């Protein structure tokens, strides 16, 4: 009979917690969301001896107060789900700063095991942590681990299982001194009057949290018969002082213990100083960042090209097979060839781009650079009303807006995060590039590169302008001041960065895949029916819709074909190219389409320019919208994002249609 136990991994950010988690569970992982919030929940399984162990990776936190969603999630899990053991993953190279969380975990009264991670690096740097005295003082077993090389995991599991089976546990609590302890025991007695409450939350822990003015803890009292009495006890004038005294006391305990367990821990690390001084330099910081980004994009397109060609060839081959009429009935062949391969294929082809860009960003993040980039950009971002942290999502948006919008989760302030989400669709993602390449290539032959570059800049400018506008109108307030840990520079390992890339990229496949497939089938249906019409002709439903929409687009000089293409582009923007191909009777072949577009008298450089700007800015694609809905949790903001995008796109395209001819006429 196998026994099942549950282990939770807790720890500060940047201590290698995920590395330990991955090394423990390997591929037996499941990624989901914590109930009620969009913080990612990672859990996995590992077999050890007779035990089937579920490992849950809690969000990285500095403490277990309730400052951010992450902290609430971590502590609610420990309290409500009562895991059999909590493994506290600690960065051995930077031992001291981890101990604050240790004291808080101890107060929660859960069985604890400490994993001294990155021990190899600590030993190399001459840090010696005495595990025996750690165990003596904290009464927590301590295991030496090196997550990146999977060292010490066997011992970690053995110790965890041992702790899970041991009972009762020693509870080693911090004493806060006579005065505070009296208040604590008064509160504990009062809380004891509600047995249900006291059974659910460790009374001493709850008393301490209440004394520290934790509103989330106060919320746990609501409805309890003990509430009034407890609140009366808390109603003392010197509560703020008590809170400060308690924090001081924890640090006193840590300071007293530290020299006894680690003689070399109190030291200065200077290796990163010089790099930081250069990278975040007032004059060099932004140029260095821009150069790195330029390099990243160059590399992305260079490396992706052969993969894209291969995918293109594969789909071409499949489409060829289907077109040759081997599939019966014919409508099924058309659905598979025109609909699914044409629609989904045009999206899949950008996977190499997205994955390579995400990989490079993962490398930059894992090396520690991205945190510096956020800091370098903070001043600039602050001026337009955004925190420096929203810079990273904007960057990822140049690859794909879906993972970018998910990456806004690290932004604590609600309004900061909402603005970052709302402006993200203006960052020109990889899907818009084929539209630009096609149209700029045809109508601005010599200056195509400049035109595409200009469109990217325009997207960024609109994003910045919108952020500024939102701050001035609907979402007033100041961005939260910047405070972020700068992790030490590390050489990223291939495995970690690949996994990181996959975590983000696979979300794109999963979330976008279903939606785009559905969308492609709808487009195909509209273009094929009523029965008997020529595929994509004016008589099809698509054609009818186009004629219906045309009056709206007439001021922009767009005819019904463009209207249809734009409508379909809502599913995924690259479909605009495919749709134009179908409607101009050119298929997916760009050469024929180019000739057809050039021959169309209603299609000139000005229309092409206006169309590109419109495609850049009009509503987010359906996958991005789905994520916006999920992350904001609000239909109101999702619809706002659609309406705002279309309005901005329409106005700018209208301006171009009226002003560009004048400028061109002058030249």
């Amino acid at each position: 009979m196998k026994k099942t136990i549950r282990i939770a991994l807790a720890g500060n950010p940047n201590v290698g917690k995920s590395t330990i988690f991955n090394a423990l569970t390997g591929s037996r992982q499941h990624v989901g969301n914590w109930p009620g919030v969009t913080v990612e929940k990672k859990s996995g399984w590992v077999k050890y001896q007779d035990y089937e162990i579920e490992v849950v990776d809690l969000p990285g936190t500095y403490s277990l107060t309730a400052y951010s969603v992450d902290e609430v999630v971590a502590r609610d899990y420990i309290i409500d789900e009562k895991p059999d053991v909590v493994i506290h993953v600690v960065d051995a190279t930077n031992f001291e700063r981890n101990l604050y969380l240790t004291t808080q975990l101890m107060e929660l009264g859960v069985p604890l095991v400490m994993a001294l991670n990155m021990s190899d690096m600590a030993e190399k740097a001459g840090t010696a942590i005495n595990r025996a005295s750690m165990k003596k003082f904290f009464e927590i077993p301590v295991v030496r681990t090196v997550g990146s090389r999977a060292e010490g995991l066997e011992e970690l599991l053995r110790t965890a299982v041992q702790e899970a089976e041991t009972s009762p546990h020693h509870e080693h609590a911090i004493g806060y001194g006579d005065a505070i302890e009296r208040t604590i025991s008064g509160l504990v007695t009062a809380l004891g009057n509600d047995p249900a409450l006291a059974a659910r939350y460790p009374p001493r822990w709850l008393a301490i949290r209440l004394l520290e003015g934790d509103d989330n803890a106060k919320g746990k009292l609501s409805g309890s018969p003990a509430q009034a009495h407890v609140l009366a006890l808390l109603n003392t004038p010197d509560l703020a002082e008590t809170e400060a005294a308690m924090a001081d006391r924890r640090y006193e305990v840590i300071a007293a213990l530290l020299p006894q367990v680690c003689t070399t821990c109190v030291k200065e690390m200077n290796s990163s100083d010089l790099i930081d001084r250069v990278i975040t330099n007032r004059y060099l910081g932004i140029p260095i960042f821009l150069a790195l980004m330029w390099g990243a994009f160059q590399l992305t397109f260079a490396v992706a090209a052969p993969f894209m060609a291969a995918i293109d060839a594969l789909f071409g081959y499949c489409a060829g097979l289907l077109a040759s009429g081997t599939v019966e009935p014919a409508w099924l062949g058309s659905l598979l060839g025109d609909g699914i391969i044409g629609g989904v294929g045009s999206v899949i082809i950008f996977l190499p781009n997205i994955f390579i860009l995400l990989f490079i960003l993962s490398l930059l993040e894992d090396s520690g650079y991205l945190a510096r980039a956020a800091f370098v950009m903070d001043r600039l971002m602050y001026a337009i009303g955004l925190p420096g942290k929203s810079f990273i999502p904007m960057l990822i948006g140049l690859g794909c807006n879906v993972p970018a919008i998910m990456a806004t989760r690290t932004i604590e302030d609600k309004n900061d995060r909402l603005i970052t989400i709302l402006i993200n669709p203006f960052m020109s993602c990889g899907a818009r590039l084929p539209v630009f390449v096609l149209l700029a290539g045809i109508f601005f032959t010599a200056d195509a590169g400049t035109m595409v570059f200009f469109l990217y800049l325009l997207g960024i400018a609109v994003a910045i302008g919108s952020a500024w506008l939102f701050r001035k109108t609907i979402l007033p307030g100041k961005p939260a001041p910047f405070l972020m840990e700068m992790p030490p520079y590390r050489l990223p390992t291939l495995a970690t960065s690949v996994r990181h890339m996959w975590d983000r990229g696979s979300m794109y496949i999963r979330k976008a895949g279903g939606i785009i497939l559905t969308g492609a089938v709808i487009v195909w249906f509209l273009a094929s029916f009523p029965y008997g019409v020529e595929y994509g002709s004016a008589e099809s439903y698509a054609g009818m819709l186009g004629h219906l929409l045309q009056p709206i687009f007439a001021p922009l000089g767009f005819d019904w074909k463009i209207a249809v293409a734009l409508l379909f582009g809502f599913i995924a923007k690259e479909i605009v190219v495919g749709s134009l191909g179908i409607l101009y009777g050119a298929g997916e072949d760009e050469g024929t389409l180019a000739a057809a577009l050039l021959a169309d008298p209603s299609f000139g450089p000005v229309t092409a320019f206006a169309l590109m700007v419109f495609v850049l800015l009009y509503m987010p694609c359906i996958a991005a919208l789905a994520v916006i809905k999920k992350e904001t949790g609000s239909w109101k903001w999702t619809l706002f994002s659609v309406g705002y995008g279309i309005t901005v796109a329409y106005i700018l395209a209208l301006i171009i249609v009226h002003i560009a001819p004048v400028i061109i006429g002058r030249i």
Partner: protein
Amino acid sequence: MTGTMPLSFLSPGTEATVVDVRADGGLLRRLVAMGIYSSSRVTVVCSDRGSLIITVAGTRYALSKGMAMKILVGGYTHETPEQLTGERAS
């Protein structure tokens, strides 16, 4: 208040002791959990117009000027930080 000034006025290389943190609620607790509290020692690694990178107990944090202004320090190693003049007006 002689000898006390906002952290953001310190120049690179200066070491100082935190005297007071002018924040409350969640932000204060976050700062404390990060190791920034009365009597902790901070070292300024680099500074750019008031924004700082500091180390506290071996961990490195970046702070915007707004955040660095909330942290009052004393007992710094350099008596007259270069940035004290000029930055005050802004």
